[in-house]
């Protein structure tokens, strides 16, 4: 015997967790604490079987909480108070006795909590929680109806199995409906609240200025930036081009959008890739360095290989880009080199002196670049994200004193020196490397891979990619951390490719695609071809047959009534309709006597003989009974 009450209690906690866990990361400290305390005290009380917290005490507790958050509510902060109240109410209910009434309240609150978590995040995990919640809630509802009848009700294991099977059947039946509604219902592509109100705390490796000296240390998150579907690129780490900085004041590098015309010579086959960026407020489109074309509407293309969205950013999108990955791009036209030689008005004396030494010893671009590179390689520079030079003279400090910094220091100081020795150059911001997911066939690039490097225009060669960070003495350690192909990595990659598929198939499925599908269906309907339809419908019929076979197989089991029960129900309905004799607590022969009808008596005779001999109806008898039923109905 299994006590229904203990089952519903467990299910209620499961439901509570399904609502809590997805919302938990978005809550502030207080509701988080209250949730934890609520769950723990609830479990403790349920285990001890005593509930010293009376419902009225809980209700009294909720009122001030409600007022507290109601006062915080404003148009600028509409969401946090609401979800905090929701979470606290859930916690309070979980901490109390799980009566039928409060259990139902917990279910509703949990659903609200889960729903509100989708304001912050639309990951496939949401679907998981939703699925679990649907199944568990429908199960729990079935069990609760039992509990409502009798608090102490207990059922045998076989009965319980039957109840559970029925409970699970309900959400299963709704799955086809779900699949039907999925393509036609309106949807959002973004976690509405979270995206429109980005958290200020985000740390981003990518920014629209390069100002290395403004922080003494940086922290970077491993948040996903984009995925790029493409074949794996050799052994070296790919460079992903974002934006280009072409102006410097000696402290920071910025961008001027009006840049001289460039006409690259395309000598190698461009690499094609599909980029799936995570939604962001930044409009720059990222692609493998160096992109020549990005197939997307409303994109502004600059001659220096920078692509920007026009209009509102933030939609989840995807685009195809073609890139020349060689790292050296020749130019057909003569470059306006003066534009890329701009220097701050006051260059520090030590930098000037260094530049002059190099200019004196080397007279063409290539050797100057080489000399500078040697200067960096032999200067004992270290790559570091801590203990960084700061202030207005950060660059000078980096080059001559501290000799440690991150890629921004390397790139911006190198570029400054290049310009000082008369080589046109610019600073390129983007990402370096990425984890290649063999399963999904894409690179996954995270925020901590943000990188800055330099492009120098070498006379006779063209734009050449130089990565000054690789000159650091510890560059090998930092940039070539080899990933071991462990199981953990495989699992993570498998999960990520599922995530990617979810984004591609579910999240980016939008109104345009709905229209497209409708149009497709329309055009297909116009070109109807009978044999083609027949041929193409074979798999559907096969699937339907399979489903039917499954149905009949399942019908034999206890999920459904046996056919005896079904024909009896039909019989009882018919008799009630025709003779006005309802079954009530009558036996079959009493019913037959009450109707005083030969056919009814015959039905009862055949039926009862089988049933009260503990036999099932033979096919003949069944047919016979059906005929009698037809007669009775007719």
């Amino acid at each position: 015997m299994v006590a229904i009450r203990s089952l519903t209690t467990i299910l209620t906690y499961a439901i509570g967790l399904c609502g809590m866990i997805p919302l938990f990361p978005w809550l502030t400290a207080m509701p988080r604490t209250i949730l934890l305390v609520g769950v723990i005290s609830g479990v403790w009380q349920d285990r001890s079987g005593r509930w010293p917290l009376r419902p009225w005490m809980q209700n009294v507790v909720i009122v001030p909480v409600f007022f507290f958050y109601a006062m915080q509510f404003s148009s600028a902060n509409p969401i946090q108070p609401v979800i905090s109240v929701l979470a606290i109410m859930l916690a309070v209910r979980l901490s109390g006795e799980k009566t039928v009434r409060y259990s139902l309240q917990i279910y509703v609150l949990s659903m609200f909590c889960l729903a509100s978590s989708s304001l912050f995040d639309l990951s496939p995990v949401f679907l998981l929680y939703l699925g679990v919640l649907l199944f568990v809630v429908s199960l729990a509802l079935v069990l609760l109806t039992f509990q409502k009848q009798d608090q102490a009700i207990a059922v045998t294991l076989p009965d319980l199995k039957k109840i559970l099977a029925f409970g699970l059947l309900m959400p299963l039946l709704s799955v086809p409906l779900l699949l039907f509604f999925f393509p036609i219902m309106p949807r959002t592509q973004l976690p509405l609240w979270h995206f429109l109100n980005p958290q200020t705390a985000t740390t981003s490796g990518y920014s629209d200025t390069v100002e290395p000296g403004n922080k003494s240390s940086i922290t970077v998150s491993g948040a996903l930036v984009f995925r790029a579907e493409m074949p794996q690129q050799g052994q070296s780490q790919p460079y992903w081009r974002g934006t280009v900085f072409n102006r410097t004041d000696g402290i920071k590098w910025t961008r001027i959008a009006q840049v001289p015309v460039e006409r690259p010579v395309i000598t190698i086959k461009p690499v094609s890739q599909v980029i799936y960026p995570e939604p962001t407020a930044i409009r720059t489109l990222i692609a493998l360095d160096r992109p020549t074309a990005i197939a997307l509407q409303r994109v502004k293309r600059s001659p220096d290989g920078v692509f920007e969205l026009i209009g509102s950013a933030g939609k989840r999108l995807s685009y195809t880009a073609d890139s020349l990955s060689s790292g050296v791009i020749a130019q057909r036209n003569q470059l306006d080199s003066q534009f890329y030689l701009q220097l701050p008005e006051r260059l520090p004396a030590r930098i000037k002196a260094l530049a002059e030494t190099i200019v004196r010893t080397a007279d063409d671009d290539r050797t100057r670049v080489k000399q500078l590179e040697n200067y960096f390689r032999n200067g004992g520079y270290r790559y570091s994200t801590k203990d960084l030079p700061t202030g207005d003279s950060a660059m000078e400090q980096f080059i001559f004193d501290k000799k440690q910094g991150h890629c921004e220091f390397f790139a911006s100081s190198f570029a400054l020196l290049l310009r000082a020795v008369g080589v046109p150059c610019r600073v390129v911001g983007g990402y370096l490397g990425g984890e290649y997911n063999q399963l999904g066939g894409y690179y996954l690039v995270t925020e901590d891979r943000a990188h800055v490097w330099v492009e120098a225009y070498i006379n006779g060669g063209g734009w050449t990619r130089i990565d000054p960070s690789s000159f650091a003495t510890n560059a090998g350690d930092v940039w070539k951390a080899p990933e071991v192909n462990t199981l953990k990595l495989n699992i993570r990659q498998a999960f990520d490719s599922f995530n990617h598929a979810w984004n591609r198939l579910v999240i980016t499925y939008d109104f345009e695609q709905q229209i497209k599908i409708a149009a497709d269906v329309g055009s297909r309907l116009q070109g109807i071809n009978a044999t083609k339809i027949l041929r193409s419908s074979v798999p559907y019929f096969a699937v339907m047959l399979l489903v039917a076979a499954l149905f009949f197989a399942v019908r034999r089991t206890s999920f459904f009534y046996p056919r005896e029960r079904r024909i009896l129900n039909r019989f009882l309905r018919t008799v009630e309709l025709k003779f006005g004799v309802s079954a009530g607590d009558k036996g079959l022969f009493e019913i037959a006597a009450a109707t005083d009808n030969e056919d009814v008596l015959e039905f009862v005779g055949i039926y009862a003989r089988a049933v009260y001999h503990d036999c099932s109806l033979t096919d003949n008898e069944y047919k016979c009974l059906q005929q009698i039923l037809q007669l009775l109905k007719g």
Partner: protein
Amino acid sequence: MSRTPQRHVFTNVFETLSRDYLQGKEEVLRLSVIALLVGGHILVEDLPGLGKTTVALALAAVTGLSFGRVQCTSDLLPSDITGLSIFNREEGHFSFQPGPIFNNIVLLDEVNRAMPRTQSAMLEAMEERRVTIEGITYPLPDPFMVIATQNPSDQSGTFLLPESQLDRFLICTGIGYPAEHLEREIIAGGGIRERVGSIEALVYSAEILAARDEVKAVYLSDKVLSYIHNLVLATRSHDLIQNGLSTRAAINIAQAAKAAAFLDGRDYVAPDDVKGIAVPVCAHRLVMRNDMATVERGGVIRTIIAGIALPLA
């Protein structure tokens, strides 16, 4: 469907009696036939003058069985029923003179007038189906059936049967007043006591014994068995009832239901059969709580039955 001669015979008996001789007494007749088929005894509890004795006589006549009658009074001795040994002067030894109980059908009229001592001797004979007198055991004839009558209204100078004795009766029923038109006919035609003598036997003891075997072979499905068991369990946990039904009662329900199914021409028991015999088989065995003694026990059984789901599938 079992269309055996035996069952036909019994239907015929039942129909002949109720049509030609005992109009309006179908229920008590049917129950008597059931008792006969099971080999149980029947207690008819009703006012005088409603035909209790006539039913017994008619049943004896139509079955061609021997009939004995005991009119119980307060000075009736056990030996008046069982018989006694009398000294035979010529042969010089005691010879046993069997009493009226050595008949196939015995009518114990107004059984509650007999002394408890006599009652218990008689009921013991009913249960054991044999009589032991002075160390010698005499078996009673087979088939053997007692039809006892009892007048519930006349309580002075009577000894009500105790519960333990009541349990020995398979069936306890009333007769009730006949329907209006039937009673008018009976008044017009006079009693049938005289005509009872002219009833021809339609069935013989060998046939009765064969029919009993068939009744035993009637199929009792698990569903109906559970139904009976649920009924018994429900009486044991009922608020108004002090002692519920005994296991003997449960066995009797099953037997009577089988006989009812047999009479209805079936070789299996339907829940309807159980419902049909539940009140006459069960009601008299219930021991009500002290303050509830006046509650009508048949009604209690009916409410209990209404609360148990019939096994329909």
